[in-house]
């Protein structure tokens, strides 16, 4: 079985895995990184959304081989120690989460968006397609706007 070395949340890791094994299962089942959640396995619910070199990815459809030598950030790696990322702070401020299951992915999607754009429009927010089955969308919208204003 091939071996892959990459960085997860700032720490180098090496795993034995089939080349086509989805990053989500490497993270969750081999490395014990459980922040990214399974919701669909085909990249449409986006509950697992994380970052590869700072850009948004869906680990459930990202083969581990594509991550070799790259840097993966999951929800666990977004904050700097106890200092939360502004998007996480905004999520607390708006009390966004209900069941919370989709929220790591929502937060990572919002953080990736705010990395690339300073001025956020409602249309930008509309393009975030992550499913929230509790229907917290309005609070997500408010939280993203609040985070954008502070960043």
């Amino acid at each position: 079985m091939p071996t892959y070395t990459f960085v997860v949340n700032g720490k180098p890791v090496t795993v034995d895995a089939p080349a086509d094994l989805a990053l989500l299962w490497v993270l969750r089942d081999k490395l014990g990184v459980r922040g990214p959640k399974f919701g669909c396995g085909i990249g449409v619910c986006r509950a697992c959304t994380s970052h590869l070199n700072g850009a948004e990815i869906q680990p459930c459809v990202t083969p581990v081989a594509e991550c070799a030598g790259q840097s993966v950030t999951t929800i666990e790696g977004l904050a700097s120690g106890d200092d939360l990322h502004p998007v996480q702070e905004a999520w607390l401020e708006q009390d966004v989460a209900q069941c919370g299951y989709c929220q790591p992915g929502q937060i990572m999607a919002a953080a990736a968006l705010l990395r690339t754009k300073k001025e956020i429009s409602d249309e930008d927010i509309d393009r975030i397609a992550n499913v929230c089955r509790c229907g917290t969308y309005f609070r997500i919208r408010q939280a993203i706007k609040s985070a954008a204003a502070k960043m």
Partner: protein
Amino acid sequence: MTCDNEVPVPAAGAPVRRRQFLTFLVAAPVLTVAVPGTAEAVIPTLPQPAEILDLGEILILAGTPTAGALAVLSVGEDGIVTLDLPRAEVGQGITTACAMLVAEELDLPLGQVRVTLADARPELLMNQLTGGSNTMRSVYGPIRQAAAAARARLLAAAAAQHGVEVSRLSTRDGAVILPDGRPILYGLLTSAAAQLTGVFAAQPKPASEHRLVGTPQSRIDARAMVTGQFRYTLDRDVPGAMPTVVRRPPTINGSVRSVDSAVARTMPGVLAIGVVPTGVAVVAETFGQAMAARDALKVTWNAGTIDALSDKEIRAKLKAATLPFVVPPLLTQHLDMEFDFAFVSHAPMETNSAIADVRDDRAEIWAGLKSPIVAQQTIAAAIGLPESAVTVHVTQGGGSFGRRLFFDAAIEAAQISKALRRPVKLMWSRTDDMRHGRARAASHHKLRATFALGNVLTFEHRVASVETDFRHGLGEILTATAASLPVAGNLSFAQTVFLTTCKVPYNFGVVTSLLNEVPLRMHTGSWRSVYSANTRGAEEVLVDQLAAKMGKDPVAFRREYLKTARQRAVLNKVVAEGDWGRAMPKGFAQGVAFHDEYKSCTACLVEIDARDPRNPRVVKAVIAVDVGRPINPRGLEAQMLGGLTDAISTTLRAGLHIDKGLPLEGSYSHFHYARQKDTPKDVRIFVMPATGEPGGAGELGVPAAVGAIANAYARATGVVPRSFPIIFPVDFEPFPR
């Protein structure tokens, strides 16, 4: 120690360490369930069953004998107070609201309260079911009484230690305050308080003295959620429990005829494969490998239970099962309407999942479970162990919407663990969840209103629904409370649930609502608001049409016919805040609707952009809600927001197509639950001031929003919707079976 209002904690699970913990298990005074009259109601419509005793009150009644044992509070030496709550948190915010009750009664900072979810506690009998929007209604008294008794003991301990009268002591910020102002932290008193003997009668604070309850608070688990630290079932590590998936049949309830697992067994990471009643289980080192091996299995299947049925046949059955009207449309003007509602998946983000470790003489289960006692009984029977040998842990769930009333994954995980003789961590795929999970039953509705001389004379609603499965303990509860039920005769459980949850809130003369069910052997279950989303949603559409036929504005009409001032107040609130009647561009419109259930009421006013009738969007929503006594207004607003999004989804686009015995939808790319782009950029929710005891809140938000959205769509497009979801093509390539 035992005293009048207290009994010791039963020695279940870990032994209680008396030296370190003061544990109260307070037998509160027996809850008295009032059977209120309808003093507020003007007479033209006789009280309906749900106005006399609603489902939530039935659940309280069934739980009354064990209400005193409900709240188990312990005060740690670190000053942390832990409530072991025999209910399921699935996102609805009950752990935060319950923590607020404890903090309020003990004069404790909210941050010093922890809430854990209790294992199945069979001694609670029927008092461990999370449903019917019943949690805050059923625990409001018992938790406050338990906390008040805890406070009384801490005061007594401080009084004894310092030789002062209890009456000269007070409590503040997690401490007993001595007459000279010195605080003694609860953690320093808990040990002494546990040694006290005697009776400590204590009454909870009157609501007028509440400083925390009724104020907006954020979820107590929010930080864990936004940092990825929160642990759901699949995030737990149980020694030896490896990733497990199931290959499922091509039609609902199909079973395995033959399996060729030769290829699958050689695949990397595969640990075990075995046949179980629901399919073929595959255990592997990772879920990815388990799913790859699952797909490599060659399986032939026996037929399922509804293989011949598709939506068309089911709709025909429902239509045929709809009971006739009583009132002939003679001599009066009348309005008849019919509606259809599709099946809807619960589709919580966390799919069905469970961990099971079944041994020869015992079993341990972890899952998000809203009826863990029934789960324990059923699992014990399924794996041939006594109930006492099956420990069922309740984990916090990633959404439910009614789904986790059933324990399908827990029982399946136990069967797999037994068959393969190893612990398993079972995850249903999204396709499993949508196609073989449960769904809100499809329904057909026939309504007739008659009117003359400006008065509504009669209102009849005939509902035909595919049978909703209530085999999660509700049947036993209704049997146990049968003598108190406000319905006469030998009604089915379903009819009883229907009549104790749905009521017409208007004075429409002679009102009759009847449910007839079509039993189909498929997987159904209560979906947030059970019958009310469809039943009341349809009624609110009819109300708009009736108003038009009688030449009245929809708001003015509702004001005239609503039964109480309290109901009119929420309607008036959305009318004022939402600027009802304001001019809108072509293709846009407002819609309004009202709903009353479980001693709460709400009105919803939406604005829709339906310039393209095939691509509408709700652009604004104004909601007013009166739940009698809001515990956490911020959490209540979240529930109403969720109800709104559910209504947007199920009214406009989200449903399941049944095709030859199986839903076609297999993921969120097929089942069109709303995304951000489908939801309003402007939502305003108004919580009405407290006036009484807490009413239900978890399901309340759906039905009024369904009606408001449908009415807005009708006004914007000129087409009154009759079939829901309104936009419902098969706009995807279904996954292979």
